[in-house]
């Protein structure tokens, strides 16, 4: 028997649910020239896949884990994130 089967305790680790990027049917594309760096998408992303580029304060997407829900595209005030079909 493993330890966690006695005690219902889990410890933090990245990617415990697996690489979820392959769930995606649409992919968010950030238009860097339109992005104003307000970070609304960073605030609302449910998966923490929106990362902030330290050099210019704008955002990019971590496609290993992005599930393509489209929340970032919806909350963007300047419509800089476009959802394009995968495949």
């Amino acid at each position, binding site marked *: 028997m*493993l*330890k*966690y089967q006695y005690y*219902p*305790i*889990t*410890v*933090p*680790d*990245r*990617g*415990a*649910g*697996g*690489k*979820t990027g392959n*769930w995606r049917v649409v992919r968010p594309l950030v238009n860097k020239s339109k992005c104003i760096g307000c970070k609304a998408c960073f*605030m*609302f*992303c*449910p*998966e*923490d*896949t929106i990362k902030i580029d330290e050099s210019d304060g704008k955002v990019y997407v*971590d496609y*290993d*884990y992005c*599930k*393509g*829900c*489209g*929340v970032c*595209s*919806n*909350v963007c005030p300047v419509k800089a994130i476009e*959802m394009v079909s995968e495949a």
Partner: protein
Amino acid sequence: MSGTSACPGCPENMAMRMLGMGLGKDIALIVVAGCSSVIQGLAPKNSYNYPVVNIAFAAGPATASGMARAYKARNRNVVPVVWAGDGGTADIGFASLSGAAERNEDIIYVVVDNEAYMNTGGHKSGSTPLGAYTLTTPEGKKQNKKNLPFIMIEHNIPYVATASVGYPHDYIEKLRKAKQISGFRYIHVLTPDPYGWMFDPSRTAEVAKLAVQTCYWPLFEYENGKLKISDESLHCLDKRTRRPLRDFLSVQGRFKRITEEEVKMLENYIDSLWEKLMKLYENQS
């Protein structure tokens, strides 16, 4: 935090990320059975960046009480946070929640309210609003939502607050405030679930904002007997400045079969809710 097994557009994950932003370090999570037990990934790992105790529905606040006392006995400054869904709070876990609130244990209790038992496919809970379709109420629920924040106010605990994932700054501010208070702290977050409420996953944040704008979900905090209505909800005090409830109902598939009569009843319920709030608000000044 990446790599959870939540559905795309999950509002509970949003709320969990904002919890991390608000509370920072020195937190131990107690996750009551529900979506969040699945979302965190495969044991013995989790993707929440906090150590998690997974526990049965009715045992959450009791476990947290014990942990709070154990941390105190060992002189460690760690706050146990119970993370429960609305089923684990309003229905199954209510007895131990009420008990912990009565003893005024030193814990934070966060409810993520998606208004049904979404993990099992969307069954009716005590928190489902009138007229909403769920698997067990195919014609729409006939009763009103159980008003948990008011029940908790009646327990005379130091801090009660409501929040919405649509307004992260308000929610994070309330979490930070809660961390500095000692005693039982209760925060109720509305999390619109795209699959149970039947709207497009990309509109999660939008629907959470609509719930506040149409005054369906009041944002307030109750601290040491003083009620403060948050800025986002101040327009609801006057009935003329409220956004029509139809705007909120029409974007959701679960209210597709609601009748005119039921919309009226829901509106009356919201009016009575605000009247109660205003009475509390006026009595203190």
